[in-house]
């Protein structure tokens, strides 16, 4: 219900900082790669490659120049898979650079620059705010077809999440939303603080896109695929599409955009917390 209030229609996705001219130093002529919306940047490089610096972090090279963030910092990622994915994004650009398709690059830039200077606690708090009006807890009373659909599709995820985290989350159809007990919020807060700053950036992004903490966590825990999570998030829309028909230039467009952003966020989280999963496996053995 509160889904469409925040629509990130900015043509450069999440790049919050407006890049003024990059600081010019003698070693690398850094161009203003992320110029304003009016001018289009042409593709100015032939090859994209990655290299590993001395500290083990990976960098992206466009021809021979190193990629920089809009804030002027050197663009570094902690692991090779993410670097390759970002390089592929840059390589996929033809003729002009379309930043709104480069979701992973945007996420890395936000994590590296942190232009609004947000701490991890602030991110966790704003993410948990979505819990009170979580999509899968917020039910309708009518039409009956939609009530049935919500019960059949959303309840299993709800129960799985409740079992997984040992919490109680109800669903309600009142306008105030469900009452979430404080213990539940504390459990989630504790769980979220185990993520690194990078993973938290990605997770907050996904939660904002899907408008649901529970769906995002279920997807990160690999219970749902990206397509399933997007479908569940857009359940009401899909129901209406089934009744009234699909409009390609609006519905499909939104769906693919949501899928792309959610997939990028999910991949970002998984690749940023690779070390975390290795630890868990050793402990389980």
């Amino acid at each position: 219900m509160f889904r469409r209030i925040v629509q990130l229609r900015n043509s450069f996705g999440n790049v919050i900082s407006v890049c003024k001219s990059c600081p010019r130093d003698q070693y690398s002529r850094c161009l203003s790669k992320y110029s304003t919306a009016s001018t289009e940047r042409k593709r100015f490089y032939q090859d994209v490659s990655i290299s590993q610096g001395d500290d083990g972090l990976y960098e992206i090279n466009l021809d021979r120049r190193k990629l920089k963030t809009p804030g002027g910092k050197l663009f570094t990622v902690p692991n090779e898979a993410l670097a390759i994915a970002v390089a592929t994004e840059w390589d996929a650009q033809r003729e002009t650079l379309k930043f709104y398709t480069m979701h992973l690059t945007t996420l890395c830039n936000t994590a590296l620059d942190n232009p609004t200077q947000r701490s991890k606690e602030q991110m966790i708090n704003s993410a948990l705010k979505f819990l009170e009006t979580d999509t899968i807890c917020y039910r309708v009373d009518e039409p009956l077809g939609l009530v049935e659909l919500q019960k059949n599709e959303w309840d299993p995820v709800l129960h799985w999440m409740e079992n997984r985290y040992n919490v109680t989350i109800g669903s309600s159809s009142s306008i105030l939303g469900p009452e979430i007990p404080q213990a539940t919020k504390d459990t989630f807060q504790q769980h979220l603080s185990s993520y690194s700053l990078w993973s938290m950036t990605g997770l907050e992004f996904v939660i904002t896109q899907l408008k649901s903490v529970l769906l995002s966590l279920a997807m990160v825990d690999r219970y749902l695929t990206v397509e399933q999570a997007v479908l569940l998030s857009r359940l009401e829309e899909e129901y209406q599409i089934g009744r009234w028909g699909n409009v390609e230039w609006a519905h499909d467009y939104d769906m693919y955009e949501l899928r792309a952003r959610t997939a990028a966020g999910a991949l970002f989280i998984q690749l940023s917390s690779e070390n975390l999963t290795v630890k868990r496996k050793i402990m389980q053995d």
Partner: protein
Amino acid sequence: MAGLASPLRVCRGILKELRAMQGPSYKQSLAYSYVMDQFRKNKVTGERYCRAQQEALHASHTYLCLLASTRNHQALHNLYHGKGERSPEEVASLVGLRLPTQPGGKGWEK
């Protein structure tokens, strides 16, 4: 929830996307070698439910979704939203009129 697609389908899907993105030389790209490497590494496992294998499969599924949806999104964008505004000449010709021409140019031009 429903099980994920088989690794073969996901692998083929990713390769198709890479080929659509980069043209015939996609086999030399970084992404191709990394993806094939990961698929080969995770193919054989001793346990019946290998956690690393499931995680890799989920990650590859996510990447396939990312590639496919960015391509579709861009295609739809170009198809429906890419044209921009019409010029004044085109607007006039929509109703069958032409813009007036003034031989010496308008006063404030030049």
